[in-house]
Structure formats: C-alpha cells, structure tokens
C-alpha cells in the first residue's frame, strides 16, 4: 500500500528530550532538555504528558499559530490506552485521532496526515508522539528500581516528546511518498531482542516501497530505521540481501544507534520507543537535509507490537514498519 504525494510538506518540527538523550552525540540538536525523569511532575506518566505537550507548544510557538488554527492532531505513545496522548489532546482541544503502532507511531501519524492533506480534506496537521524510559519499563517489564539484568540485545526506551507540522504550504522539505507496512510475525518471542522481531517487517516494507514505486536503493541518499538497534541492524542488512536481494548496507543507519553513545552510555543495543525515530529525524536529519547533506531520506519506523499478557501466554511478538519518504524540494 504505497502513496505518492504532490502537495504535502513538512513545515516545522520540535523535539524535547530527557537526561540520557541530553548526554548523547545529538545533544545540541534538540529544542528543549529536561534534566530529570520527573520533569517537575508527580509521576513518570505525568512527566510523559508534559514532554509531549511541551513539544507541541514549542512547535506552535515556532509556527506562531494557536491550537485553534490546527485542523487535526494525530498522536500516540506506548502507555495503556495511549493515555498521555489523550491528556495532551484534552488540553489542546484540537480534533484528535489516537493511534498505536509502538515505535512506528510517528510514521503512521504522518502517513494518515499526508493522505488527508493530499486529498484536501484538511489544511494542516500536527503529528506527535512521546515515550518515557521509566514509565515504559514499569508497564512492559520490571520496576526500574529492581535492576533486572538484561541481555546485550536489549534496547533502551528513549525519553522525550516530538511533534511535526505538515501542510499544503510549500516548504523546502516535502513528503514525497509513503508505504503502509503489513504486520509481520516470524515467531520471535524475546522481549529483550525487539530488533529481531522488527527486522522482517522493515525488510518487507522496504521491498514493497521499492517495488510499488519501481525504485531501488539508488534513488535514496539514506535509509533510516527507527530502533532496530546494533544487532537488529545487522539482521536487517543480511535478511534483505538473502530474502529480497536488496543491499542497503552503504546507505543505511538506525536511529536507535544514532541517538546514544553506545560505548559510553549504559543503553544496551541502542534507543527504542516511539520517540527514538522522531528525535533523530526531526532533531538531526531534517537539519542535515536543510543543509542538503541528504536530499532523499526513507524513514522506515519499526514497531514491535508486543503485549506482556500475550507473551506470558507464550504468543509471539508481531511487528510492523511504516515508511515515509522525505525529500528536499529542488
């Protein structure tokens, strides 16, 4: 399911981060940094609301717009009932669509928005997401104060919020095309190796995107996955070669590896969480595109659709990957 767009542009974006991201290699690229996990709130869940809300407020400030001039808000996060997104939407009073595709949330939001913009159903849209390391660990794994030992393949949920404004108003970066991924399940059951669960979904989406547009790797300057991590990255490169005879190795990087300094920071195989791909894309990549260092970037945001309940029932971890093609307007 691939779409091509003629009138969809990325006009502005914002990024807000927590303490770990503020110590990573991209620390100078973010709009606002919170120095602790509480962000002045009573709980981590409430801190996550604050981070997403702050990113949207910074975005509105950059655009010099009020919430009332925004046609639609699409947002999602990792927590139960996507509650943080709902609270943020309640404050903004913008018509709201809540979505869930774990770490592929931002791409999903942008695809839905782009389709509605191209069809002239709306004039503008804000896509937003957030994640928080401690609230995610509390919900999906162990209490953070427990210190459960983790294998080297485990990734580290990023903390922060990100928002992007898309519209039909021409700008130097456009959304050129997008592919909605299929949910792929190759029987992976290790919640501490989500990279392995997600790589086949990323591969399927990349293959489908290339096939539907009759393109190959030469069209792009950079292929970015959201959070496959150090080992998921290797798996994807080799899986694409073996299964689809596609070689992306020379033009490929993973946001999860770029967000942190894997040697100095204790973050396992890299960053994960809905905000991982968003922070790297909107914090760093877009700025590089503005300088024309990359002209055509395919962001393949990957989401591990795992549920602890089903995992305990010995079910597997299905995954999905959504692709968004960002290009510099010549």
């Amino acid at each position: 399911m691939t779409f091509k767009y003629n009138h969809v542009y990325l006009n502005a974006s914002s990024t807000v981060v927590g303490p770990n991201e503020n110590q990573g290699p991209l620390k100078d690229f973010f709009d606002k940094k919170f120095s602790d996990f509480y962000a002045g709130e009573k709980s981590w869940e409430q801190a996550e609301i604050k981070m997403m809300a702050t990113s949207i407020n910074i975005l509105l400030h950059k655009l010099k717009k009020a919430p009332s001039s925004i046609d639609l808000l699409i947002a999602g996060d990792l927590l139960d009932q996507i509650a943080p997104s709902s609270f943020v939407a309640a404050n903004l009073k913008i018509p709201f669509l809540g979505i869930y595709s774990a770490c592929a949330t931002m791409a999903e939001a942008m695809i839905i928005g782009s389709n509605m913009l191209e069809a002239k159903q709306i004039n503008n849209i804000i896509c937003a997401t957030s994640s928080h390391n401690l609230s995610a660990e509390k919900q999906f794994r162990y209490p953070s104060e427990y210190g459960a030992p983790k294998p080297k393949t485990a990734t580290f949920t990023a903390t922060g919020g990100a928002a992007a404004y898309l519209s039909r108003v021409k700008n130097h970066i456009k959304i050129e095309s997008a592919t909605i991924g299929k949910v792929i399940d190759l029987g992976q059951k290790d919640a501490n190796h989500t990279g392995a669960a997600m790589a086949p979904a990323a591969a399927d989406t990349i293959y489908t995107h290339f096939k539907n547009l009759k393109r190959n790797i030469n069209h792009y300057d950079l292929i970015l996955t959201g959070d496959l991590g150090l080992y998921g990255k290797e798996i994807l490169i080799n899986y694409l070669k073996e299964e689809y005879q596609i070689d992306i190795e020379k033009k490929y990087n993973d946001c999860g590896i770029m967000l942190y300094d894997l040697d100095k920071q204790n973050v396992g195989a890299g960053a994960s969480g809905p905000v991982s791909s968003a922070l790297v894309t909107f914090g760093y990549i877009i700025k590089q595109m503005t300088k024309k260092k990359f002209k055509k970037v395919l962001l393949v945001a990957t989401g591990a659709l795992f549920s602890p309940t089903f995992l305990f029932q010995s079910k597997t971890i299905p995954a999905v990957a959504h692709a968004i093609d960002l290009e510099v307007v010549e």
Partner: protein
Amino acid sequence: MTYLYAFLFAGAVCLIGQVILDNTKLTPGHVTSLFVIVGAFLDIFNIYDKFVLWAGGGALVPITSFGHLLIHGALDKAQEYGIMGLAMGMFDLTASGITAAIIIAFFITLIFKPKN
C-alpha cells in the same frame, strides 16, 4: 572454617542460579521460586539441615533457606497436631522475616521516591 564453608555454599547456590539465568529463558522470579521449592524438598531427608550445620549463616542467606524454614515450621507443629499442624505451623519460623520485609518495605516506600 565455617566462614569458608559459608562462602562456598552461598557462592555455589548463587552460581547455580546464574547458570540457570544465563542458559534458559527463565526469569529471576522463576529461579527464586524454584530454589524455595528445592530448599523445602531437601528437608524431606534433612539434607538442608546438614548444610546449615556445615555452612552456618551461609546456608541461611540464600532464598533456599526460606523453603527450609517453611517446611520445618510446618513439621514442628505437625508433631503435635498431625496433618492440621502442617498448616498451623507453616509460617512459624518465617513469620519474623516476612513481617520485617513487609513493614520495612512499606516504610522505605513512604520515605523515598523511585529514581532511575
């Protein structure tokens, strides 16, 4: 000498636990539950009692001792009351440990805030 045996015994039990954690998909919860069961099991034949004599405090430290104390509490009361006694005496020897863990955990929770 008992100090050496305390070191060796507690170390060995933890080592076995680590081997299980590293080579299976079992979680810490699974391993500790398994060890409690083993502790109780070994005292069907008074084996854990011998470990306590031999390694002293070192045998009381691992969670296996919890199983050992549970079965002993149960059996001690069963001397007097038969099968009913098993239930009556179950928590006799571990009462103080469990009570302490609950009360201390509660007050620590009241005072402190979770951090990273």
